[in-house]
């Protein structure tokens, strides 16, 4: 093959690998590592994280956000962390013997997201069953898709989606770009997307309420601080921040 290309590719790889090793994360004071479901990112990172650091001088809080199943698997594989906030009970259940102080702190329901001009005039859950409407949902394998299936079963209305995405973000992107006429996402996703999408609430969403549990990890080296963070999330202050982001009470 083309030698110069191969060589330059290897050089790029080496340079990238070299750059990875220099993450300075051992600060002089203690660091609290919080693993959170992706939907919690803005609330934790912008509101609760800074407040926690303000009330705990010298403590640095480090967040890692991803899908709850990824985070649960990481903890199971021995990732070092102090707190885990999951977007559903199932992923907390998987590691139930590795956590303490488990408590439900929020809930989230599905909402229909449509482009701002709502090209297919979607106004109710039943509209999603029309073959003329391009509907995107999460695949049944992921929590938001499981919730959609639950609603379908409860209502007897069958959606025939054009795509079943692996994450709620992918569903939202298809709506934001106007590729899809409607998507089923969480209330908090609609709120976070701002003016890019319009949310259409529907009564049947009560059929599938996702409850978010949070817990400290049994192996945490900062058990006291970890408990403090859980307490902040469940305090009035923490609950207000979650309300502001669209979450409901557990």
């Amino acid at each position, binding site marked *: 093959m083309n030698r110069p290309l191969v060589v330059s590719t290897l050089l790029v790889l080496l340079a990238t690998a070299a750059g990875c090793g220099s993450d300075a994360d051992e600060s002089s004071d203690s660091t609290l590592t919080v693993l959170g479901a992706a939907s919690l990112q803005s609330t934790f990172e912008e509101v609760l994280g800074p407040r926690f650091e303000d009330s705990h001088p010298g403590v640095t809080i480090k967040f890692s956000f991803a899908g709850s199943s990824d985070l649960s698997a990481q903890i199971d594989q021995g990732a070092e962390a102090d707190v885990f906030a999951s977007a559903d009970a199932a992923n907390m259940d998987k590691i139930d013997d590795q956590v303490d102080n488990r408590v439900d702190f929020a809930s989230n329901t599905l909402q229909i997201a449509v482009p701002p001009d709502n090209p297919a005039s979607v106004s109710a859950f039943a509209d999603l069953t029309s073959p003329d409407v391009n509907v995107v949902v999460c695949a049944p394998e*992921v929590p938001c898709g499981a919730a959609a299936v639950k609603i379908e079963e409860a209502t007897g209305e069958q959606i025939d989606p*054009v795509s*079943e995405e*692996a994450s709620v973000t992918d569903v939202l992107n298809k709506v934001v*770009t106007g590729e*899809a006429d409607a998507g089923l996402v969480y209330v908090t996703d609609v709120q976070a997307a701002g003016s890019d999408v319009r949310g259409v609430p529907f009564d049947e969403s009560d059929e599938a309420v996702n409850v978010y549990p949070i817990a400290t990890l049994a192996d945490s080296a900062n058990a006291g601080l970890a408990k403090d963070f859980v307490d902040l999330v469940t305090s009035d202050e923490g609950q207000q921040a979650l309300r502001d982001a669209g979450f409901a009470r557990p």
Partner: protein
Amino acid sequence: MAGHSYSGVPRWVYAPAAVGALFIVLPLVAMGTRVRWTEFFSLVSSDASVAALLLSLRTSAASTVLCVVLGVPMALVLARTSFPGQDLLRSLALLPLVLPPVVGGIALLYTFGRRGLLGDTMEVLGIQIAFSTMAVVLAQTFVALPFLVLSLEGSLRTAGQRYEEVAATLGATPTTVVRRVTVPLVLPGLVAGTVLSFARALGEFGATLTFAGSLQGVTRTLPLEIYLKRESDADAAVALSLVLVVVAVVVVALTRGTRRTA
């Protein structure tokens, strides 16, 4: 094969070379140890897995054809002509090689999407790209095309123009020269490039996910199926990954085979 008297490789080179080889092989071995062999065939023969594999093979074959149809003329123009801005054009043509595929997907979305640059035109023509198998083929072609152009252009330059000039002086038309002289001369490079672009299309993930969506039998290719299965059934994800590794190994073996006969 080179002569045996002088290998030209200093001894110390072997150490980093071995580390590099291990770096590539070890993760594959590690994955192999996680496969549940007793359930392997039931895992990879589920409806969803078979649908994903067949879709992957079909779309990759289609995009490879597109790559040859578009890539061979591109390589010819880049290797055999010279015009102002050619270097720039060459760099642009190779761009998908270095772009993250997600970026490619976003770019395709804003081109062929319903609200994209060509969206209205396509709607008039009655073509719906969004969420169709065609979208998968476009995404794969976008990322695989540079592989074919790159390897074929290299072969064309190496082969030189001597025989083509002779054929032309003997009265062959440019089309005949390309057909009877150029293509046979660079055939090994063309085959290697074709196999490479097929392999790249087979592994395409980011652009497809962003641009085409994910629906069983329509847009959910094998890499997307693996990504999804990871969420719910890690064993199935590992088993399917192994299938993709085997296909990749076969493809690499094919390329080596064609080069040896060259």
